[in-house]
């Protein structure tokens, strides 16, 4: 069964490019533009094999999203990857404390993205 991944980022360009890369590798993807939308996607879904989320987003940021996602028993243990930039070392820690599994540093190449997703979701 194809693995399904939820991609949350307020930048449509980033979101779509991540989806595109993942789909090329046979993953199915669902997109959301912020944390609130992300939670809505979680509510209506049975499972995700991995969640990739940006940190800084309007309405609900990624850190809050992770906390709330972890409160949902369905997604308590799902691998969650945080998208960060190098300048945000503190965000990695914050993300980890909120319950993220790992992170992807922007900008990233397709290979890097796939390597990290494989690492946590395979």
């Amino acid at each position, binding site marked *: 069964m194809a693995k399904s991944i939820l991609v949350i980022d307020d930048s449509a*360009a980033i979101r779509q490019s991540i989806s595109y890369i993942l789909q090329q590798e046979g993953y199915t993807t669902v997109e959301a533009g912020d944390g609130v939308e992300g939670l809505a996607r979680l509510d209506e879904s049975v499972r995700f094999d991995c969640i990739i989320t940006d940190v800084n987003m309007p309405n609900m940021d990624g850190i809050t999203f992770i906390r709330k996602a*972890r409160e949902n028993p369905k997604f308590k243990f799902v691998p969650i990857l945080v998208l960060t930039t190098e300048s945000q070392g503190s965000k990695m*820690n914050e993300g980890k404390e909120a319950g993220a599994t790992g992170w992807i540093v*922007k900008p990233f190449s397709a290979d*890097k993205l796939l390597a990290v997703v494989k690492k946590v979701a395979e």
Partner: protein
Amino acid sequence: MNEKFKETFREEAEELLGHLEDILLELEEKPTDAELVNAAFRAIHTIKGSAGMFGFEKAGRFTHDLESLLDECRAGRRAVDKRLVDLSLRARDKIRSLIAQDDSSAEFDAEALAMMEEFRAMAAESSGKPAQEDQKPKADETGRQREAMATRVLEASIADSGADGSGLSATYRIRFEPAPDIFLNGTRVLRLFDELATLGQLSSMPDTGRIPMLESLDPETCYVIWEAILTTSAGIDAIKDVFIFVEDSSKVKIELIDDRLDPSEGVRKLGEILVERGTVKPEDLGEALRSQRKLGEVLLERKVVTDSELESALVEQAHLKKVQERQTEGPSMSIRVASDKLDELVDLVGELVTMQARLLRTSVELADPGLSSIAEQVDRLVEQLRDNAMGMRMLPIGSTFNKFRRVVRDLSAELGKNVDLVAVGADTELDKTVIERLNDPLVHIIRNSLDHGIESPADRVAVGKTATGTIRLAAEHSGANVVISVSDDGKGMDLSAIRAKAIERGILGPQEQLSEADALMLVFRPGFSTARNVTSVSGRGVGMDVVKREIDSLGGSVSVESRPGKGSTVVLKIPLTLAIIEGMLVRIADEFYVLPLSIVEACVEANDDDSTDGSKLVQFRGDLIPYIDLKEFFSVPGEPVENRQIVVVNVQESRVGLVVDAVIGDNQTVIKPMGRMYRNAVGLSGATILGDGRVALIVDCMKVVEAIPERELKARSR
């Protein structure tokens, strides 16, 4: 992906920058509104984060310092004032023009540089530090770079120490104590070990002694800790990478135990290992050793070590022993034999195989049950003997791999590129003559990857790759073949450039349509070379066609895969040995010939109508292909026969029909070289003896096909 989403990014940035303008103007009215400051920061942050992804590095770099400045405001360390809003507005316009220009090569103009200077100055003011202090992270950066270089050097020395033939790898001891709550963030601990196992030879020793009774167990807590021993050529950074997401909360300790296992040192003593690990004090060891009993028992009895400590030391010892044995192939167990003696043995076995076939036949004819049973048993023995004899000529391909390290090192220095060579499957065994003949083609493929595949460090960084490229050399067994692949993570092959060049060189008609795979194969055609400038590397007069010819002559095949921007892979499929081939036995008049089965595509009935116009072309699967009458070619006397067969072979990417009188069938062919008198016979590569004692000649299809005029070969596939 850059191109595909560049436009989306541009539109999005345009929208965000418009939004940013509104926010900044509002902020001027309400400088204390935290939500507005936040929104401004977010807009800049999003642009900065995405810009680099879609090839707008320059805009990304420009935005970086503005982002830091806004972050200061967000954190309340700096008040929003008119100067800040002014600067931000000007910066916003600049970002817009940087994105519109879409030019990442040129330097920043004076205006941009001045603004960046101002961002930094303002951020420094707010943090109360002089602007000079702000350089500090840069100093850190150089420190980090130096550190990175130091590890590089360390790795290089590990790799070098392996290059003398004692092996390519180092052995590490890894102690991993997962954070108790590691399960809670979605980490699957066992997968980390799977990842380690992909790096090399892994022995893992879990310590389960901390798992409590079921009554007091928290099912979501991790209690197991590990010691693992890993022998790998991938370097310590690759090991660290495995643990990158868990190293902050879990304890990970990686030590280099041995960067070179010297067989003359013998297997490590258990005591040595225990002392080195700090499990046992040297004085305790001395005492325990005096007791003349098994060291482990004594230490356990005296409670100097625990069960699991002892066990993990034993695992380490066993691991080291295994690695050592593999590397040295057991020095006391092997003897040197002159290779011509081995060749002679294989020759004799070949004859034995032939005689055995006769024995089997005779026993069937005589229908003597006693004889049949003996013949069958001898058959099994001969088969084993043959495999054994062939096996003795097998050598691990690793010895060749080591030579390539040097090639890569020298060439990458010459070209100003950073390239790592990763070798996988160095212990894959292959007939020694095959290994020798593989050397040149592999060197050529690697050169090609280095020269055309891997980009310059600057280009790599610009597209978001690591500055150092990787060439991966891998060998593995696959049935009666060895598959060797050379892959790089460079820019891939440029299909349109290949097509253009092929058309320019007259290899491809301007209108000719080819599948992607076929187009890639064009690089192997004679006269093709994609090197626009003749560099000292690929301008040495040989093209990839030489590679193809050499691999073909080994009875192997070549294929290429390429992913634009990601790299390309050349795959060689080589038969394990040259001494025996799978052949197709055919008859021409009273003579027998063998065609290598690997190049045979089909057998079709010859239709006399085909050749009436004298063009020597025949219909095959909708194409016209040239054919050669082997009877004519080899001047075999004999009457014309009806119902002749055409064997369609694929040589150098061309289909050619070979006309024979009859196709007999498959044949395991033991190749015998021909005597001196026949060495120069065109179109024959050897001979073999058939089960009934008759001789069959092995056809060198490539030479036969070369006799066909070029224009007829071109007539194919329209």
